């Protein structure tokens, strides 16, 4: 296996990543800092309710939707995963 063949995967990956990174920064410069909902609403021409979902975040990270329900669903999913693993484990 030649070096080019061996590394062509990572070269293509790097090339795609570079193109997308440049495009993302260009788009970010055009739109400015916006949340997901706000960016969508601006694109669609809808009015947005800014700040509502930002509450309760930790250094910019926050849960979209109800945080309590989020934790409850996570607990249920963990229990379900354990049960399925127990049932199907070989």
């Amino acid at each position, binding site marked *: 296996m030649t070096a080019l063949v061996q590394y062509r995967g*990572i070269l293509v*990956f790097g090339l795609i990543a570079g193109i997308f990174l440049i495009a993302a920064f260009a788009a970010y410069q055009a739109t400015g800092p916006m949340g*997901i909902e706000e960016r*969508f609403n601006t694109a669609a021409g809808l009015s947005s309710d800014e700040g509502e979902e930002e509450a309760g975040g930790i250094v910019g990270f926050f*849960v979209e939707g109800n945080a309590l329900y989020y934790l409850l669903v996570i607990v249920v999913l963990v229990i379900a995963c354990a049960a399925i693993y127990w049932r199907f484990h070989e």
Partner: protein
Amino acid sequence: MAHIHLEDGAFTLAWVIVWWVLALVFIAVALWLLRAEGQKNAKKVTIAAFVTAAAFALFQVNIPLFGGVHLNLTPLIGILAGPVLGALVVLVINILSAAIGHGGWGLIGANVLVNLSEVVVAYLIFRGTRAIIPDLFSRAGIATFAGLFCGNLVMVVVILVSGIQGVTQSTEQVLAGLTLIIAVNMGVAIIEAAITGLVVRYIGTARPDLLGEVQS
């Protein structure tokens, strides 16, 4: 990642029904295929459960990058669980997301189609390029890029075809705005591609049988 972040009422009822019916057709086909395969999917069911939990947990977390984005791991779902179980996984994730207030109930059908396209394309690229890209990290990463890009295109098509109620913007203006969203999303896709690549490479080292990789 691609996800239609519009609230209920953005699409007309007719289009909500159209996207729901289309999504349910794909789900029905997936269920039929699963039933036809029988117990052969036992191991995959466990994998599907774990990727559902992981993807749901990550999907809800807003990451302060480019103003706010989130990951969804749909390409990883496709690579690990396959497109058949993956269809059910994305349905479950979208329903649970709507249940906690992330996304509208009426948009679940459209979002399932968007996420399903990511799952299927990532799966096909990952499997189809095995001969030319043996390295698992880069193959999974490239499959992730392809899947997420396709998902973004489907998202734009769904929005443009449906139209959004109560807006005065022209189709061209909406398309221009959505193009910027695609560009930002694909910037975030670099992180998702790296995570997917690392996870797949680790699994390929520890449990290559889970990837269906035959050592050559």
